[in-house]
């Protein structure tokens, strides 16, 4: 019985193997995380490097040159994208949040579960299919319009807004709803005055993320708002220019200057999306504080 009393606590045999496995798994997961970050850094970095030269005040404030000439800017595309995405958001965000309120606050599980499932499917529908659907509905036999593009983007946004809003509303502590019930506050009033204000940050987050998601959406735009009449800057009844379509068109051009302009436009788009994400995170943090999560 001369065994060192520490033997049992030493790192050997089973314990040592366990530690090796632990280290290996840790290393693999760190590598995966680094890879994910690296992809983002490489994409953003290369877009920045290739696009920053063409980026200028002139580029942002001048409309695209006529007849595929280089030397123009993307002001019309920025305005067009803002109008298309703005109308889409105005349609999708209120409907999406109302859907979420209905399923989390009012509907019984027999209704809310199927609705959730349908939203998930809708979220998985390829956007080209959404685009073709709206094309058949609004453009075929008529003409392209920015409004049709907005409808398509709204369909893409709707499940994103509704699902994130559902998640956020479900985070509102049950104790607050209990308190409201116990005070004899009617359910709809509680929803409007207590649940929604408490979750407001998260609702804004979800909406901003949905906007960021569709701002770069290209497939429906090509189908629905790509044949742009000269001189139409703001009428959503006609096709409007947009940043994604500008990138698509310029990168197809044989001229190298046009390629640089495509990179610059891509930089503008990616900067917008990143900025929206940062703002969205800030709102989310505020909302989490409120809900004590």
């Amino acid at each position, binding site marked *: 019985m001369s065994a060192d009393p520490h033997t049992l606590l030493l790192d050997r045999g089973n314990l040592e193997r366990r530690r090796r496995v632990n280290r290996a798994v840790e290393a693999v997961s760190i590598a995966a995380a680094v890879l994910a970050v690296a992809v983002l850094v490489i994409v953003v970095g290369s877009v920045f490097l290739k696009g920053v030269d063409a980026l200028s005040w002139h580029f942002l404030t001048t409309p695209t040159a006529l007849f595929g000439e280089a030397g123009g800017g993307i002001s019309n595309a920025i305005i067009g994208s803002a109008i298309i995405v703005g109308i889409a958001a105005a349609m999708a965000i209120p409907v999406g949040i109302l859907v979420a309120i209905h399923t989390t606050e009012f509907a019984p599980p027999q209704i809310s579960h199927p609705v959730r499932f349908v939203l998930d499917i809708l979220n998985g529908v390829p956007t080209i299919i959404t685009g073709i659907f709206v094309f058949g509905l609004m453009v075929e036999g008529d003409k392209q319009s920015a409004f049709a593009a907005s409808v398509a983007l709204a369909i893409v946004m709707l499940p994103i807004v509704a699902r994130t809003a559902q998640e956020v509303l479900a985070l509102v*502590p049950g*104790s607050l709803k209990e308190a409201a019930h*116990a*005070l004899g506050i*009617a359910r709809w*009033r509680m929803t409007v005055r207590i649940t929604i204000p408490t979750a407001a940050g998260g609702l804004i987050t979800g909406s901003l993320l949905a906007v960021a998601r569709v701002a770069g959406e290209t497939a429906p735009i090509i189908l629905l708002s790509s044949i742009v009449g000269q001189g139409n800057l703001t009428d959503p009844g006609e096709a409007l220019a947009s940043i994604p379509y500008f990138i698509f068109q310029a990168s197809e051009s044989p001229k190298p200057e046009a390629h640089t302009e495509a990179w610059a436009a891509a930089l503008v788009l990616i900067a917008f999306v990143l900025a929206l994400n940062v703002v969205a995170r800030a709102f989310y943090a505020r909302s989490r504080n409120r809900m004590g999560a």
Partner: protein
Amino acid sequence: MDSRNPTESAALTEPNPDPQLNPQTGSAAAGPTISVAGPNARASLRPSRAQGTIELRDLHAYYGRTHAVRGLDLAFAAGKVTAIIGPSGCGKSTMVRCINRMHEEIDGARAEGEVLLDGLDLYDPRIDIVAVRRAVGMVFQKPNPFPTMSIFDNVVSGLRLSGAPRGEIDDRGREALVAAGLWEEVKGRLKGPGVGLSGGQQQRLCIARALAVDPEVLLMDEPCSALDPVATLRIEELIGELKERVTIVIVTHNMQQAARVADTTVFMLDGELVEIGPTEKLFTTPDDERTEQYVTGKFG
């Protein structure tokens, strides 16, 4: 096994002679006897200011198939403090939540039997559930002020969100803060956030919020379990002051607390009533053997 004190029970359950309180009379001259949804609901639910007697008749409560409360018959005297004690899971909270019909907010939960407020059955199908909650207020285990509202907005939230006349709101809010013993501490920062207060202050804020709607009965479900001893003492003192204006039913897992604050104590076990009696008697010379074992710490 019914070991309730028969005289006390009889006194508490004496039917109210006022016909206005009795939904069974159906007399036209008696005016509206049962509340329905609408602004008058509250008025008809609270026939007289001095009342606030709660009586349970064969009350059963279920969570799905679980039978949590198994046929309770008991009464809570107006203007008194009644403590409910018993081991975890004995149905104390469930029973209390049946009194303001909060139990049925839980999915799959339901209650059977009668809960009478001054003789009026709160489970009558014609009763508006919102009116029940205004007549029977509740304070929860953890303080739960609304995080988006200021201190004062929290206090008057029940009034404002239930459409009380604008002119009354400020006065009633202030009065509720005074009654909850919080006015002196917060009068300089009424517009500050409610969640910025200490735990004990938050709980008194929640009591003020419940009092502002002027209920007949105040249910307190372990109101001090998340508080430190000093804050707990403050709430216990407050309970003593408040029984002048509301009937108080307090669930507690702390027997000393029951002994300090309650006029009457109820001991429950496995969803059933074991004993109800004056607090001192229940803790010193209980009628039931199980009560004695519980209060002397032999189980629970």
